[in-house]
């Protein structure tokens, strides 16, 4: 070791968060278009967010898998090839809130990408042979997902916290998918793939006004009556015994703890976000420093707030070694309890605050990050200006605010816990700490 101690350099002055140049227009058909300029590379990112709450689960999943399967003028292969020509690509994804079409391409191909997008939105044909192939692929994918512990733990957690709410089941069963016919997909498309309430986001090397014009030219002909499908609010968490889902032979246990949370616009949100960071939301959190860096029980514990249209929830997740499952739960509840009971230290809060503010800047520094952020915000009725508002709230949250949020939202007494693992080996460890209800996987 060298003589003397070197001093950690101080940080330079903070650069103000700057929202990039943008344009927004709501078209006559109800579609909102937002274009944001980030010219760093000659590309454009595209996100089309369409409200899709309460759609039939298996039909929705199959529609997302087959919406790019052909139009009156293009086969699926031609759609892919035409997009490739301009360096583009599109893919579709679905969750209980929305159907999303997303992609990126060379900015010189923006008009062509929008033209193909419009063709798909107004004229997807769901050809029978293609639907059959894609249905089987979806079934295979679901089977693979069902063999993954993270998926099984998530499935059990959703069912436990959402009960009869549409969020409770988010993956269809293989048999339900096999039963989906092309006619049902065409019907669902006609009913739900419409512009009212949808938001198209374009981010990249564009002039925002001109990009909005291009979107209007391409998509003005996309019409259709909007069908309202309001989701009921997500139910509050109902505490109860730890739900132990048996996965015989598992060499790790998947621990999931759900806690209450609030939407981004709620006055408590900034303080809750900071409290979550202190607990388990970043590497320098108490939970990670404890169960990973001190005890070596796990590789990557993490907690985060998940925002959906019908409600928000905080989920803490860790894969822990089977033989230390009980001790890992003990430390988890200890860290939650400590944060809910005692105020954090000021320097600990400062560190989390800097992280929250800094990662806002990082998230905006790529076209893809900016596009996803703009789209996620827009899907929840917010715009990028909210970033500055949120940064201001993060900057002024006090130790007392954060302590109050932790007491209100992170109290272990409010936690709903699900654990997937080898029940024979872990039930005793868990039962020493808390009441346990054991079920078989998939039940």
């Amino acid at each position, binding site marked *: 070791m060298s003589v003397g101690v070197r001093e950690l350099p101080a940080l*330079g002055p903070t650069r103000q968060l700057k929202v990039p140049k943008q344009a927004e227009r709501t078209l006559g058909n109800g579609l909102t278009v937002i274009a944001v300029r980030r010219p760093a590379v000659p590309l454009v990112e595209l996100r089309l967010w369409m409200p899709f709450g309460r759609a039939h689960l298996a039909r929705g999943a199959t529609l997302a898998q087959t919406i790019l399967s052909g139009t009156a003028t293009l086969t699926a292969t031609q759609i892919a090839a035409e997009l490739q020509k301009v360096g583009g690509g599109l893919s579709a994804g679905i969750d209980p809130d929305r159907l999303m079409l997303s992609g990126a391409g060379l900015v010189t191909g923006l008009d062509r990408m929008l033209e193909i997008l419009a063709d798909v939105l107004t004229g997807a044909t769901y050809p029978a042979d293609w639907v059959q192939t894609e249905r089987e692929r979806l079934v295979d994918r679901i089977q693979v997902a069902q063999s993954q512990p993270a998926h099984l733990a998530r499935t059990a957690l959703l069912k436990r916290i959402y009960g009869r709410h549409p969020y409770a089941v988010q993956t269809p069963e293989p048999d339900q998918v096999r039963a989906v016919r092309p006619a049902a997909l065409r019907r669902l498309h006609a009913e739900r793939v419409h512009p009212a309430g949808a938001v198209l986001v374009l981010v990249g090397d564009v002039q925002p006004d001109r990009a909005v014009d291009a979107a209007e030219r391409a998509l003005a002909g996309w019409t259709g009556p909007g069908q309202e499908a309001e989701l009921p609010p997500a139910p509050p968490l109902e505490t109860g015994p730890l739900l132990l889902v048996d996965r015989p032979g598992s060499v790790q246990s998947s621990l999931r703890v759900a806690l209450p949370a609030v939407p981004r616009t709620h006055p408590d949100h900034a303080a809750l976000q900071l409290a979550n960071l202190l607990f388990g939301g970043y590497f320098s959190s108490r939970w990670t420093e404890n169960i990973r860096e001190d005890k070596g029980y796990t590789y990557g514990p993490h907690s985060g707030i998940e925002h959906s249209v019908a409600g928000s929830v905080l989920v803490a997740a860790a894969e822990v070694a089977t033989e230390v499952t009980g001790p890992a739960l003990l430390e988890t509840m200890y860290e939650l309890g400590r944060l809910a009971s005692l105020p954090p230290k000021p320097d600990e809060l400062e560190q989390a605050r800097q992280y929250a503010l800094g990662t806002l*800047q*990082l998230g905006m520094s790529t076209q893809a990050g900016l596009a996803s952020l703009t789209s996620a915000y827009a899907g929840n009725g917010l715009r990028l200006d909210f970033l500055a508002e949120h940064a201001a709230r993060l900057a002024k949250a006090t130790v007392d605010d954060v302590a109050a949020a932790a007491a209100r939202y992170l109290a272990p007494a409010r936690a709903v816990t699900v654990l997937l693992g080898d029940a024979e080996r872990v039930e005793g460890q868990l039962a020493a700490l808390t009441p346990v209800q054991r079920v078989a996987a998939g039940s």
Partner: protein
Amino acid sequence: MAARRSRIPATKYPVERFTLDNGLRVVLTPDRSAPVIGVAVVYDVGIRSEPEGRTGFAHLFEHLMFQGSENLEKLAHFRHVQGAGGTFNGSTHLDYTDYFETLPSNALERALFLEADRMRGPRLTEENLRNQVDVVKEEIRVNVLNRPYGGFPWLKLPPVMFDTFPNAHDGYGSFDDLESATVADAADFFRRYYACGNAVLAVSGDVDVAEATGLIERHFGDVPARPAPARPDFTEPDLAAERRTAYTDPLAPLPAVASAWRVPDPVSDFAGYLPYVVLAEVLTDGDASRLVERLVQRDRTVTGLGGYLGFMGDPFDVRDPTALLLQAHLPPGGDVDKVLRTFDEELDRLATDGLTDGELARTQARMATHLLRDTDAVLGRALRMAVLEQQRDDPGLLNELPRLVGGVTDEQIRAAAATLRPERRASVEVVAGGAR
């Protein structure tokens, strides 16, 4: 009629290179479009360099580099990066190990301080070693042992294709080897490979070149000079006959197969290598690609397909020997032999008949988008340029890649396809032990 061709654009990220007196090579690539920076330090040591009996050691050592250093307690590195609003990580590859941060640009000097401090020497203690052996074992359980298709094919195919320990062994490591690692091993590994003459520092993003240069000299200038070790010869002869194995994955619900063929040396024969990078995309990129059209849509013998260069999907950051890989997931009861036969048929057809009109141009346009998109992330530029400097003395190659990819010809693709013969192929099959 020839298909209309999209013009392939290029980036113009500036590149400044210099070497400190102690041998540390530095690359700066300023871009002030966002107030963020990427900092990467790349050491020229990876999985291939770990000693026999110490599988997984390069990766374990990467973890130890985060456990404190000369002026930093355990946990301090994480706290200082995140407390500056940044994120960090490290990763271990076949030929190198990287350490990196993305930060708001006001944290440049702090990041340089943190990297210089551990370049002078990590705190290697018995307690930290035991703790990180436990953490790495959990990492292996998450990524390999407790999930279906764990380590497929990146850990499963090299032992089929290669005969020598450096190329064939399990880079994550056996639990036995990990548990037998000692502090003395770690100190020796650091002394041998973590010399500043064996490292490259790259800084990208919102920096002023003169200011950054001064800060780099201040923080790294007094890291003691140590020369790079000689790199061993890892070459192996090409396969003379087909190799094929199978293993049962008790968690996998469906069968799968991966095949690999050796390709030209990515560094010394870049021009010969590049057509293979494009070929992999012609074969497998999207619904309009050859193998997807044939295997997924027409024959329905495959439900998921991928094709790429390098066992870790690393076309431009690996040295010889490396491979082109094709990987397929099959439907229940799927016939692996038939899939392999179809690979051969399609490769033959491509070598014999060539490409269809516009097929190559559209694939190249799509590749340009992928390459440009990767460089938009500030850290992506620092990491890529650091490795390009280390392996090729040419960080500016990053700017050229889209156009170089765009310059590959039909004839080169056909010639590349013609070399992917069954007798040069190594394959590994996953038998679905978890089929229901």
